[in-house]
């Protein structure tokens, strides 16, 4: 990863979905690279183990839990972190995919199940972006990474295991919706000095953690500073 190393030291970042497999990996990477870090989880996935273990390494880490789709709660958490850490340079949006997949039967055609996916994934990403971007606009700089899956491109997923399994209609629809949302937002904010790009994981992403960190680093480091709304697909 050395060729992409950026000067992260002293910068401030937030990982939303810090308790996901990907969130943890990216949180560790950013903290070890010297980023002052805010970790945000949904109440239902509250677990500050990562924050505690990072603090043991003398890293500067804050931890907040928020209610899903709480506009006020998410804004308050982001404002608090940015205020305390001294601004915001990076945002990583990681989703609780492994948990949501465990709870979803791929043959489930219930309308409520779709609502759950939409709220937990698309709407929470929107809200955390809405809270974070004004802090980046103040500095006319910022790098954002959306963690997504390739479900929206391929409509299929195979494999067995805790984190994989068959993809559902709900996931495929929300995955491609995230890509559309990212594309539109990226174009709105790039004139303000903010880049928004994505990493889309294949179904066996347990094995791809290192590659995900590499990809996120590509976008966060500014190595491709003119990239806008690009989605690195890791099949």
């Amino acid at each position, binding site marked *: 990863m050395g060729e992409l190393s950026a000067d992260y030291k002293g910068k401030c970042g937030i990982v939303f979905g810090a308790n996901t497999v990907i969130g943890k990996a990216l949180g560790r990477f950013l903290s070890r690279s010297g980023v002052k870090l805010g970790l945000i989880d949904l109440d239902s996935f509250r677990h500050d183990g990562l924050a505690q273990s990072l603090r043991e390494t003398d890293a500067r880490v804050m931890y907040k839990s928020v209610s899903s789709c709480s*506009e006020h709660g998410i804004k308050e958490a982001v404002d608090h972190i940015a205020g305390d850490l001294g601004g915001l340079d990076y945002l990583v949006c990681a989703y609780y995919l492994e948990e949501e997949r465990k709870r979803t039967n791929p043959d489930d*055609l*219930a*309308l*409520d199940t*779709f*609502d759950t996916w*939409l709220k937990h994934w*698309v*709407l929470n990403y*929107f*809200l955390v*972006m*809405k809270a974070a*971007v*004004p802090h980046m*606009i103040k500095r006319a700089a910022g790098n954002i990474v959306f963690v997504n899956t390739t*479900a*929206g*491109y*391929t*409509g*299929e997923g195979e494999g067995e295991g805790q984190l994989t399994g068959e*993809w*559902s*209609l*709900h996931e*495929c*629809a*929300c*995955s*491609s*919706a*995230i*890509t*559309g*949302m990212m*594309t*539109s*937002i990226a*174009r*709105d*904010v790039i004139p303000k000095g903010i880049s928004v790009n994505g990493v889309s994981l294949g179904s066996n992403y347990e094995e791809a953690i290192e590659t995900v960190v590499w990809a996120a680093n590509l976008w966060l480091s500014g190595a491709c500073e003119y990239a806008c709304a690009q989605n690195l697909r890791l099949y």
Partner: protein
Amino acid sequence: MDLKGRVSLVTGGAGGIGVKVCEKLAALGSFVYVCDIREATEFVARVNAEYQESRAASARCDISSKEDVEALYSRISQERGGVDVLVNNAAVYGPMKTHRFPEISYEDFTKTIQVDLSGAAYCTLSAIPHMKQQGWGRIVFTAAPMSSSGIPSPYLAGKAGFIGLTKYLSRKYAGDGISTFALALRHVDTPLIRKVIASRGRDVEEGVKAMHAKSLTGRMITPEEVAAVYARFISASSPRISGAVILADGGITYLR
């Protein structure tokens, strides 16, 4: 091409592309439920008079409401057995003035995406059991290219969501006789696009003229042309014709 005996549901059926799709499907013999936020009484009366039989019905429904969608499917099930052809065409553009990020409000974002994406998902999820049971179904999406620029985030999120739906449905239900496809459209001459031009303070006719000129074909796509493509896919008998997302934008996305 014959859809005699088939029951179609077209969301956003009372205007723009939707009304032309309804006309086309009725012309092919299908019974058409014209689903919209407003009643389509006049249109339905005209169609039924033209064919001198009951060929269409107005189906007023707010598709962003699960209760409305469930009630509509319950009605169709009782009246006609179920939906054989679903055209997910309804969409709202979102706020005309404050649609840029981060100015767009959470309320506007959710209101828009609930019509554009949740509405289509509700209709699709409700349609599948009947289609699966009878071993035949067609699901169509009026989508948009993910690469479109200057489009509000909830609108593009909703339209892009159709691409994932199309891919998923074609794989999951290929063996059940259900085919699906999407047209990723840009530059279709509809009342919505005229409304968007007006909201930007531009002269509508001048704006439309500029959009005609911007297309490499020299003109915008018409709703009739979209309806004709839908009809062709819906009528296709081969189960292999499924899962396609066709970019239909007059060449502007990649060539400009």
